[in-house]
């Protein structure tokens, strides 16, 4: 039996701020948990071509999983992107403090 394909999320960097953003289904969001999870590869690729690109640089699909209904990236590179650097609490960790 073949291994089921992972879910996917759509991510990019913000045009002016450069920070990591995720497609939530109706807008780009800073919050990885709000990322829309695509079950089908076909739908994901379709979304990649259709989402508004004006503020999103280099959008691409990344494998993810659903934890309590929220998206969580699977690959360590994507996990680091969703968290920020490990040497300072900058980036996403800093943003989280202000939420």
């Amino acid at each position, binding site marked *: 039996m073949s291994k089921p394909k992972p879910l996917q999320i759509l991510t990019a*960097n913000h*045009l*002016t*701020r*450069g*920070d*990591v953003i995720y497609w939530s289904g109706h807008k780009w969001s800073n919050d990885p948990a709000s990322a829309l999870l695509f079950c089908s590869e076909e739908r994901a690729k379709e979304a990649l071509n259709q989402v508004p690109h*004006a503020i999103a*640089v*280099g959008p691409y699909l990344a494998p993810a999983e659903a934890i309590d209904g929220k998206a969580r990236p699977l*690959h*360590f*590179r994507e996990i*680091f*992107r969703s968290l*920020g*650097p*490990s*040497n*300072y609490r*900058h*980036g*996403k960790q800093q943003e989280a403090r202000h939420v």
Partner: protein
Amino acid sequence: MYNYTDFDRAFVGQRNHQFRAQIARRISGALTEDEFKPLRLMNGVYLQLHAYMLRVAIPYGTLNSAQMRKLAEIADRWDKGYGHFTTRQNIQFNWPALTDIPDMLDALAEVGMHAIQTSGNCVRNVTADHFAGAAADEIADPRPTAELLRQWSTDHPEFAFLGRKFKLAVSGSTVDRAVLQAHDVGLQIVRQGNERGYRVLVGGGLGRTPMLGKLLRAFLPEADLLPYVESILQVFNTLGRRDNKYKARIKFAVHEHGINAIRKQVEARFSQQRHTFAGNDRQVYRRIKADFAPPVFKDAPLDTYEAERRNNPVFRAFTDTNLTPHHAAGYTLVTVSLKAHGQTPGDASAVQMRLLADLAQQYGHDELRISHEQNVILPHVHKSDLPALFARLRHAGLATANVGLASDMIACPGMDYCALATARSIPIAQQIARRLQTREREVGPLKIKISGCINACGHHHLGHIGILGLEKSGKESYQITLGGDAGNSAAIGERMGPGFAYDQIIPAVDRLIDAYLELRATAEESFLQAYRRLGSAPFKRALYPETRLAAELCHAL
């Protein structure tokens, strides 16, 4: 220090104005990312993992206090209060907004700095020996040569779109501190009789296919510098591959065609165009050279310095590791380590930058240097001022006495910042430094260099211990190379075997250090000397104690 002319100021101002307009067109949507990317790269702007990054050139690693203060101001005003000094004498700001970058560049221009050609397929920031103009072993200050090359290569229309990036380094000493053999062109100032000139190396580079530079010319008269280097670039532009970016650096042309064929072509081109330079380049060189006149050194008694060394063991430890002989009596070079144990190698906070600027102004003839080893140097400090200077460094957490020791590591930003990285470098460096802190003086001179991907910005190939972070089966994996060196006996390190997982790499380095301490012939035999004497086998056994590989090696012995 080189002083910007009206032409320089107008050129940088115009370039900033042009780039400001390009950014505006990108934001408005008039330029696509594909159209904008080569423009931003030519101006030092990358889009990294978490944000844009602005890479600012510190030509030949030289700064004055006003420039260092400006870097601090930029860090505070537009970034997150710090900057990262790189292995090519640049500083990187990791968090600018694209919309702020034009203002950052204008601020830099106020003190004669810019980010032009710190990226892209062009001639990059020209680097030099970080002890330039001060070291006791220097034949001549390499910075006038580096500045001449910078002016010649900046916005040079023929070399603005090379097949790949092109890196030049210059040294004025018999001791190679500029990693000449790992550059596309390495220039070493030498003497032949009474004449001064250059020993020219070509075709060095690290990355996925590391190669050491080969001798192109044993002696190039000083006056022939620009026509000769231009000839090298022209041959590269003709022979260099453009069909495969992984084989486009000049090192591949040298490898594929052979050094003799390259030399023949360069010499032929040189003889054709030498006369076209007509001496204007020499006039410019003479003007530049006058800007680099040494400061007026003072004479003062050394009693306080010697007394402090006798009475203060912490000061003595600092002076044992962080000083380098100066050519002027009573003076020393002071290396300020940016490698406090557990900190990010090469990072300096705005507060630290301001302090370094103050110290340079007060005790160092207003000069600073940045090394490719990611430290800051005060190149002209009189030893009588050292106790006071040391006290202020210590107060700011900048008096770590570890220069040349295990914790004085080179580490690239790795996957904490870099979009190209395949694994993290910084936390590995932090953990190794903490782990080895208590015994690094016992271990002695040791160069550990860490890269977070095969592009080798962390110079791992040249580390006595090199660590390369890769991805393996969806996880970070770290390969170890041993026996590399960046100096006069430059060598590419030998890969030891399978990689180590993130949580296994620190114990592996620990085992290597244990093995070295057990194997060394005397306490004076360095890690590299022991490795060269013994070969890799005992170190492989230490790295892979329970594997078949180790068993086979033991059996073979």
